[in-house]
């Protein structure tokens, strides 16, 4: 039994990503979408908070949103896996529930 959490806001603007990470349980997955994809950048003011949970959680980022924002793949954190919309659907069906951190 595990949950897919979606985060769609910039971690530099709001506390939503942090609150999500604080409430995930081991084995859960986090998918960053829309402005949430900035949470996947390496070497930022928030990247340590993401890396710290990457052992217990699977962290994904929606690649079309990454590309829209001009973030080169080389700048993304190693702990983050890119998915497309098909991958998003698979994450939804392969977890028991989805929780949106709106």
């Amino acid at each position, binding site marked *: 039994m*595990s949950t897919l959490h979606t985060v769609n806001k910039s971690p530099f603007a709001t506390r939503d990503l942090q609150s999500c990470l604080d409430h995930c349980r081991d084995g*859960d997955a986090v998918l960053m979408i829309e402005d949430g994809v900035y949470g996947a950048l390496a070497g930022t003011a928030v990247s340590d908070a993401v890396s710290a949970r990457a052992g217990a959680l699977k962290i994904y980022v929606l690649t079309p949103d990454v590309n829209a924002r001009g973030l080169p793949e080389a700048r993304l954190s190693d702990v983050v896996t890119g998915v497309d919309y098909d991958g998003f659907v698979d994450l939804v069906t392969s977890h028991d529930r989805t*929780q949106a951190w709106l």
Partner: protein
Amino acid sequence: MSDIKKFLYVNRRAPYGTIYALESLEVVLIGAAFDQDVSLAFLDDGVFQLTKGQNTDGIGVKNFSPTFRALGDYEVTKFYVERESLAERGLTEADLQEITYEDEDDDWAEKPSIRVVGRDEMAAIMADQDVVLSF
């Protein structure tokens, strides 16, 4: 799966600045007519929805906070409020409205609906649901 699903309404936003808190409450009221297992979670700024003494006369907006106290009559009796969220905001349970329900399984004894829980327990409650609605 049984016919009864566990629904969790997650409230993470403050009231009045935006409409999410009010429209969340409208869903809870309608949802109460369905025979499901309903819980409400209040965390982050959502805990501000439950403060007592709200007086909206000065902003010309309807005060919807009394409606929370009516939810017990609709068998919505589980209000999980996160302790850490309260503390970060300088609040304690004493700053919140008293919200109660009458327990039909216990000779209609009046019991508190608000249950202050730690962050780990909140995470466990979230993980125990069938449907999570976020507002």
